């Protein structure tokens, strides 16, 4: 293997025995198992990984994990192409193909680079002021193409995603030192624990920690804790799992990425965890500093540089300068020195950095205390950093000498921002701590325990004791108080930090606040100049913190800058609201298993298999899978529907009506109850008879219709529309439980217990007489709208003389399991009569001919009984019912209400389009008087028929109108909706 100056020969947590090949922007590179795409790119000397969002400036890696703002990549994998991934989180795999985004043809040579020169034309909010004439739409497509963080996949997702639900006593978010200590304490105390960490292995910052814990090397200690947790039995350890959101009542959502997505298992798992107690040990994110040209490739967070060296055995450069305002970066300097980099200097903004500086000097590293960064130098990569000494006397800052330090790696550490997102989403308040220069969790929900760096404690010894205490406390709160023993210990070291947000204003060169959305200091100054005061407004105007990294490395700096610019303080400025998800979550994991046929599962009738096996074209009708029509070899759809209609009008048809709602209502007060639920009077309904009724809501609007049948004095069978069954049943229960709890009534929804076959047509009785039954089917004994109970071919049956076709019709209800047998029997016995199964398309056309209204089609959300010709019944019913009072409103009595009528096209061959608007005068098309609701060709009548809702239609019978639709106008006449057999001869046969 040829030697590589960017890769250390030894050390790190990579497996040098497993080399991996990958491609980035079309070029081939190699790395090792254990690399991320980012570490492998650095190890190959790749410094420019992308182009900035607005100005297409060359950008390099800044972080090493989820805080990374620049290294956004698209992973190519055919149907699995995935945008919006951070190279720092992508685990390297053999054969991986990745490319940079927002540039063309690649990151190193981007054709859009000249946009940098137009920076002046594109300050914050430029799209509110420029590119307006002639229309923003002229420019929008080009602007959108020039900016974007990836392309969406176009093929269906081949992967599976799972969902799991879990309860636990203590959820520990974060498997670093504090989280491990917390999980240990809670487990030993006897609690049920879930520990989740977003990295492939537990340990967090311990993965590059040199100190010992309880006498063990940090990684060995981590391994021993993991062993103890996994062996404990009531503990679940999740790695590669991000807790991305906290919702009501301690419901947390976790996204687990499974390690081998190409295999047959699920790719990701979404956990819904209801946790009694939550320990937030999510750590803290390092802050960059704001100074001119701080976005050059080669400028990265000090902790990231340390991670690349210690964990991935990568040299991120040859010669480094470390600029810091706190102690933590010194460890980075030592680590980089040990990895073979030359450290030009550590620039510390503090005048007296204390022991860490002394220790650095002993190691031969120059420390320039009391200096701050002035600007970075370089064009496509950092070449140096200019610094200036600050001499503070009596509070006044005086400028000192400038000094330029050469480097090809600039490590910055402007402080640490605790990851308090989950705590904040749980409505925990934040308070600003000036000593730690951070927003820390304040006094919040008792079930939340923030600990470790997430609570502002950066020192390892502090994290261990603090984390252990938090775990013990959380366990105690749920009653688990077995003795957990001692907290883990390590050597004490300092971890002081101080506030340094931005270099003093001097240069006109751009200083970046938000790298991902290309927001500069000047943009924030512009926002304040334009009098935007609130942090929420400034955020949206400048878009700082609004990119996919959600401001992880920029929010705090923006807040501090805003405070400075408005002459207030950070607590006064406040912070913007934290919203989930913490890190991007795939749509696939949110959809889970609810895709494909499980997206909207349809209910199936008892005859579903028969329909499917006999050519039925099955469609979704009100949530049920039902036959629209039955196909046959060599026949068109129109032929088949005509044949089905003809059978119903001239011979006999069978129809699967099983989805129709059936609700049993029993009890001494059943009649009184139904009288209140229906518009029509039901108290006088005779036993063995049925009555068509409308059900209204309290606004008087028709919500359902159907026939109510009285089987016995205290026993009713309510039929509803198939789409309304659950709704009406729920309504019955609601009224009985909440308003009339004293009524003695029981209701049960028996829709799926009974199969329903409608036998309809002039020869329907003839067919039924061929079956064995104890029910007298003769016309005199079984009139229209009667119900009879008995046995049919040996099984219990309820037969009602109701229907929707307008023909002689018997609806047979039998226990669902017998439906197929009865159906096949009817088809067999009726073959010589010409019996045909009928689908819904045919049924709808037959009922349209008959003028039967279809609630929801011929009525809308404003239709009341008077609108459909049933107004006269109101005066005949004295009792109150649901919606009665609303029918007395003046609006219910308006003369120009839309009313249900028939519409006769002047041309009998013209089928009026459904939805066509009724207009009086063909020329004036802007005043709709109603619309066509149902329409079809009627073979029985030899002409087209239509139904509609027309203003004052009931009083306008005979009037000529026009129907307008899609540029065409049809002359028509308002007629009665009862087209076919208006006297009901067929019905009453």
């Amino acid at each position, binding site marked *: 293997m040829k030697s590589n100056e960017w890769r250390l020969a030894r050390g790190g947590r990579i497996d040098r025995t497993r080399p991996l090949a990958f491609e980035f922007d079309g070029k081939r590179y190699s790395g090792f198992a254990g690399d991320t795409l980012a570490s492998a790119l650095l190890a190959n000397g790749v410094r420019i990984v992308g182009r900035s969002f607005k100005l297409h400036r060359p950008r390099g890696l800044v972080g090493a994990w989820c805080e990374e703002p620049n290294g956004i990549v698209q992973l190519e994998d055919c149907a699995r192409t995935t945008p919006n991934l951070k190279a720092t989180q992508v685990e390297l795999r053999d054969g991986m193909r990745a490319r940079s985004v927002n540039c063309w043809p690649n990151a190193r040579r981007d054709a859009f680079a000249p946009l940098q020169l137009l920076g002046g034309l594109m300050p914050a909010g430029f799209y509110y002021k420029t590119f307006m004439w002639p229309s923003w739409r002229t420019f929008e497509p080009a602007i959108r193409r020039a900016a974007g963080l990836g392309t969406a996949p176009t093929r269906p997702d081949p992967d599976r995603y799972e969902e799991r639900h879990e309860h636990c006593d203590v959820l520990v978010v974060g498997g670093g030192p504090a989280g491990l200590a917390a999980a240990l304490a809670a487990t030993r105390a006897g609690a049920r624990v879930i520990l989740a960490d977003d990295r492939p292995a537990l340990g967090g910052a311990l993965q590059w920690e040199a100190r010992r814990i309880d006498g063990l090397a940090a990684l060995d200690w981590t391994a021993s804790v993991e062993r103890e947790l996994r062996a404990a039995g009531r503990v679940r350890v999740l790695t590669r799992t991000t807790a991305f959101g906290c*919702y*009501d*009542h*301690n*419901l947390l959502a976790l996204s687990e990425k499974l390690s081998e997505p190409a295999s047959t298992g699920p790719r990701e798992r979404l956990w*819904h965890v*209801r946790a009694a107690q939550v320990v937030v040990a999510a750590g803290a994110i390092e802050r960059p500093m704001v100074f001119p040209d701080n976005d050059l490739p080669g400028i990265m967070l000090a902790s990231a540089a340390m991670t690349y060296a210690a964990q991935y055995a990568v040299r991120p450069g040859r010669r480094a300068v470390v600029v810091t305002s706190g102690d933590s970066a010194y460890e980075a300097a030592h680590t980089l020195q040990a990895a073979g980099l030359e450290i030009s200097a550590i620039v510390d903004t503090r005048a007296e950095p204390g022991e860490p500086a002394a220790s650095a000097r002993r190691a031969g590293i120059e420390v320039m205390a009391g200096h701050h960064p002035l600007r970075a130098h370089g064009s496509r990569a950092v070449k140096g950093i200019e610094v200036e000494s600050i001499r503070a006397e009596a509070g006044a800052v005086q400028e000192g000498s400038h000094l330029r330090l050469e480097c090809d790696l600039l490590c910055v550490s402007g402080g640490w921002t605790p990851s308090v997102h989950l705590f904040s989403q749980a*409505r925990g308040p934040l308070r600003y701590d000036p000593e730690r220069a951070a927003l820390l969790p304040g006094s919040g929900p008792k079930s939340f325990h923030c600990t470790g760096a997430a609570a502002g404690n950066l020192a390892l010894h502090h994290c261990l004791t603090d984390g252990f205490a938090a775990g013990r406390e959380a366990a105690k709160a749920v009653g688990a108080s077995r003795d957990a023993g001692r907290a883990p210990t390590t050597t004490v070291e300092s971890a002081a930090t101080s506030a340094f947000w931005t270099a003093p204003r001097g240069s006109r060169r751009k200083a970046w606040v938000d790298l991902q959305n290309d927001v500069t200091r000047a943009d924030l100054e512009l926002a304040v100049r334009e009098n935007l005061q609130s942090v929420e407004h400034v955020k949206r105007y400048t878009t700082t913190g609004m990119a996919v990294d959600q401001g992880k490395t920029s929010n705090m700096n923006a807040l501090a800058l805003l405070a400075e610019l408005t002459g207030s303080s950070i607590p006064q400025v406040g912070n913007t609201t934290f919203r989930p998800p913490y890190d991007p979550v795939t749509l696939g994991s949110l959809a889970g298993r609810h895709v494909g046929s499980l997206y909207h599962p349809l209910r199936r009738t008892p005859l579903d298999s028969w329909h499917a096996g006999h050519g039925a074209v099955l469609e979704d009708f009100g949530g049920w899978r039902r036959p629209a029509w039955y196909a046959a070899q060599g026949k068109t759809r129109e032929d088949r529907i005509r044949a089905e209609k003809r059978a119903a009008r001239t011979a006999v048809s069978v129809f699967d009506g099983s989805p129709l709602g059936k609700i049993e209502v029993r009890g001494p007060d059943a009649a009184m109850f139904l009288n209140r639920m229906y518009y029509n009077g039901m108290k006088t309904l005779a036993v063995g008879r049925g009555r068509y009724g409308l059900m209204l809501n*309290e*606004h008087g609007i028709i919500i359902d219709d159907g026939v109510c049948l009285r089987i016995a004095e205290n026993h009713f069978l309510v039929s509803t529309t198939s789409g309304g069954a659950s709704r009406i049943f*729920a309504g019955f*229960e*609601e009224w009985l*439980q*909440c*308003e009339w*709890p004293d009524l003695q009534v029981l209701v049960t929804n028996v829709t799926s217990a009974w199969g329903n076959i409608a036998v309809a047509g002039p020869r329907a009785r003839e067919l039924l007489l061929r079956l064995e039954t104890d029910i007298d089917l003769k016309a005199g004994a079984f009139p229209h709208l009667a119900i009879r109970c008995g046995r049919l071919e040996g099984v219990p049956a309820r037969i009602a003389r109701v229907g929707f076709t307008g023909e002689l019709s018997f609806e047979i209800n039998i226990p669902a399991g017998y439906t197929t047998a009865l159906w096949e029997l009817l088809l067999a016995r009726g073959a010589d009569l010409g019996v045909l199964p009928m689908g819904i398309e045919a049924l709808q056309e037959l009922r349209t001919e008959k003028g039967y209204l279809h609630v929801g089609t011929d009525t809308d959300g404003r239709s009341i009984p008077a609108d459909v010709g049933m107004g006269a019944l109101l005066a005949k019913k004295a009792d*109150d019912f649901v919606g*009665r*009072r*609303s029918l*007395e*409103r003046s609006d219910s009595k308006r003369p120009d209400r839309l009313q249900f009528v028939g519409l006769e096209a002047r041309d009998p061959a013209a089928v009026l389009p459904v939805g066509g608007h009724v207009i009086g005068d063909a020329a004036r098309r802007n005043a709709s008087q109603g619309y066509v609701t149902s329409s079809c060709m009627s073979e029985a009548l030899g002409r087209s028929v239509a139904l509609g809702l027309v203003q004052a239609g009931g009083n306008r019978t005979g009037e000529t109108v026009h129907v307008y639709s899609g540029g065409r106008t049809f002359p028509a006449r308002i007629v009665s909706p009862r087209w076919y057999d208006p006297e009901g001869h067929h019905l009453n046969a």
Partner: protein
Amino acid sequence: MLHISCPWCGPRDEPEFRWGGELPLVRPGPPERVCDEAWAEYLFMRDNPKGFVRERWLHALGCRQWFVLVRSTITHEIRATAKLGESLPEGLA
């Protein structure tokens, strides 16, 4: 996702339930003695407080019983649940 304690079944997740609106809801009657304003009050007017509200909820995918719940519209804290007709804890009636 709220965690709701059904008075019959115990604590369950929100998708098992259906919200039924603010309480108290008194249906005026008989209809011939109800003026337009009173009927409009019943149909449309609700207090919609910023703070604790009494509401009806239905355990739709469980016992199918309606019950009363006291919830904060600001924090979603649920103070109490009770069966219909039972009194709520002190100070919440």
